[in-house]
């Protein structure tokens, strides 16, 4: 998906040179459709051998028995040793004690911001607490014109409200993923904060597809801050003109009372059970997990390596923008590992939109969100009660 799909062919070519008998075909899908397309492929018995899966999808594909457990392969592998990976990230791939994905690259969210605009408002560093952050945004806003906003958080994305929830200590789901915890105090606090950003006009109420060109808006100063992931390092470097390159920076996310947590995201390489070429596929997975290949991949996409040893390479160690990510990776929290997560996440922003646009109060919104989430989880509760699904 995304830019990775476009550049991975370079890496593939090198792999094919090393293994002349193996030919690899690459399919690209945009992130927005990848989840449904991969499931369609699964339902239609047309799965690829390997897929890059968002690591929040691994539990789902495991629950439908689509993936091959990798523990044996990992244990006997030189190129993908377990202990060279970030713990929090590796664990997102473990379901019922078995590993179903190898982390390929890590993703977490940090703030991308206009240094100059922040400095002009009197801040030399990105604030580290919610209160300070909000104050800085208000300062910036007071110096902005109409249709200009300090922060861009599209209302059709789930990471922002979920991240705030995780920062406030909410488990998002309770009772082993059987019920929603969105109307409880921690998430409510986070959600209040989220909605207030829009109410105070610090962020515009826009959907993802309405922002026709984020990079132009950032360059023109219509947006000063944007929460996003590592791939944006590459995009910002390539799409913003040379003159802008020293005007933007990254910083870890502010949290409630200090530096905050962020998503333990990323993509994994998973092997499909139905693959007729498991041996060759594993060779490719190992290849892509080599630290030198991970560094090369980083060079092509800006995606951060999952291998800790890769981080010592100078290209990464010296990359000023990657530092915020390295820092943030020490404070990552996974989302609930239930198959229904993808849909629950959608409900979060759908209901969130209602509150942001003032159609419902915060309490109403969260109550309805929990109601919907509980309904979604009914099958899971049934399956667990029938012992068809093990408890986590």
């Amino acid at each position: 998906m995304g830019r990775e799909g476009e550049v991975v062919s370079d890496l593939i070519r090198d792999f094919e040179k090393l293994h002349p008998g193996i030919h690899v075909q690459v399919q690209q899908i945009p992130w927005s459709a990848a989840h449904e397309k991969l499931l369609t492929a699964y339902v239609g018995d047309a799965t690829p051998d390997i897929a890059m899966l968002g690591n929040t999808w691994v539990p789902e594909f495991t629950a439908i028995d689509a993936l091959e457990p990798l523990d044996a392969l990992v244990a006997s592998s030189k190129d993908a040793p377990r202990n060279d990976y970030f713990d929090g990230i590796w664990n997102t791939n473990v379901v019922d004690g078995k590993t179903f994905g190898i982390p390929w690259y890590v993703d977490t969210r940090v703030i991308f911001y206009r240094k100059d605009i922040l400095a002009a408002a009197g801040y030399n560093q990105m604030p580290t607490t919610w209160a300070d952050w909000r104050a800085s945004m208000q300062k910036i806003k007071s110096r902005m014109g109409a249709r200009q906003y300090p922060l861009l958080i599209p209302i059709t994305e789930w990471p922002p409200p979920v991240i705030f929830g995780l920062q406030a200590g909410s488990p998002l789901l309770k009772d082993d993923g059987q019920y929603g915890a969105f109307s409880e105090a921690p998430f409510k606090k986070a959600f209040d904060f989220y909605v207030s950003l829009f109410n105070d006009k610090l962020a515009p109420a826009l959907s993802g597809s309405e922002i026709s060109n984020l990079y132009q808006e950032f360059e023109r100063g219509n947006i000063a801050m944007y929460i996003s992931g590592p791939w944006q390092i590459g995009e910002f470097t390539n799409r913003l003109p040379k003159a802008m390159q020293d005007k933007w920076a990254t910083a870890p996310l502010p949290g409630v009372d200090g530096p905050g947590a962020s998503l333990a995201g990323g993509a994994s390489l998973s092997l499909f059970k139905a693959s007729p070429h498991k041996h060759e596929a594993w060779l490719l997975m190992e290849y892509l997990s080599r630290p030198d290949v991970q560094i090369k991949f980083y060079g092509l996409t800006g995606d951060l390596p999952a291998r800790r040893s890769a981080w010592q390479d100078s290209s990464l160690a010296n990359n000023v923008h990657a530092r915020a990510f390295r820092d943030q990776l020490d404070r990552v929290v996974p989302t609930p590992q239930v198959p229904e997560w993808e849909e629950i996440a959608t409900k979060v922003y759908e209901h969130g939109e209602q509150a942001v646009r003032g159609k419902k109060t915060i309490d109403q919104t969260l109550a309805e969100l929990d109601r919907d989430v509980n309904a979604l989880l009914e099958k899971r509760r049934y399956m667990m009660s029938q012992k068809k699904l093990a408890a986590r």
Partner: protein
Amino acid sequence: MESARRRQQLTRILLYALLIIGAILALLPMLWMLSASLMPTGEASTFPPRFFPSAPTLEHYRDLFTRLDLGRNLLNSIFVSFVVTFVSLFINSLAGYAFAKLRFRGRDRVFRFLSMGLVLPVQVAMLPLFLLLKNMGLINTYWGVIIPGLSSIFGIFLVRQYALSIPDEMLDAARVDGASELRIFWSIVVPGIMPILATLSIWTFLATWNDFMWPLIVLSDASHYTLPVALANLSGEHVQDTELMMAGSVLTVIPVMLVFLFLQRYYIQGVMAGSVKG
């Protein structure tokens, strides 16, 4: 009379004005699409909006065919549309003629049953159809897209309507001469219903080329996508790249526009004739 003449002149001017404004409105989106596809990157997102490119460039089209491999999707669309059009033409006209001119037991009952199908929205069938094709191993294949479109109740109706006007005597005479039914169909009926076959084939081609929901559901990898699905796929990832998306839209629309413009006589006549009889 002078004033009546004058009034007619004014009315005529008014009508032409309306027609021209209407024509501009009808064509404006397409013209902007074409123009924006030739603009350098970023020019389509400026204020005030530009109508003409400052320096027309074919770079986006190059991108489509090289980096994004849309040429493959173009071929897919061509393949699927041609197969469906010609095979369904044969199947539908056989059935349409049979309903019109062959006397057999149960004809009216079966026909009435088919007519009921016209009220059923095709979406009701999609979920089980998907599961059926899955069991046949046809998900994410061209045939998964082609097969459900090979016969249409509408097409059968259209042919039947037209075939009704073939004189029975001509057919009976051929039967007396000992010709088989298939022979009769091939040598007498088909030449006789050429106009409706032309209309139906254009109609089917356009409908298949433009079909979106079913290919979206059945196809899961980009190398199999037809153009509309590939385009929607692209727009998810490249919503930022206005000019590129416009080029993709042009590529999708041009073939059907050409087919339509060259064959519009048959098509339009078919629509209008069908409606009067209907």
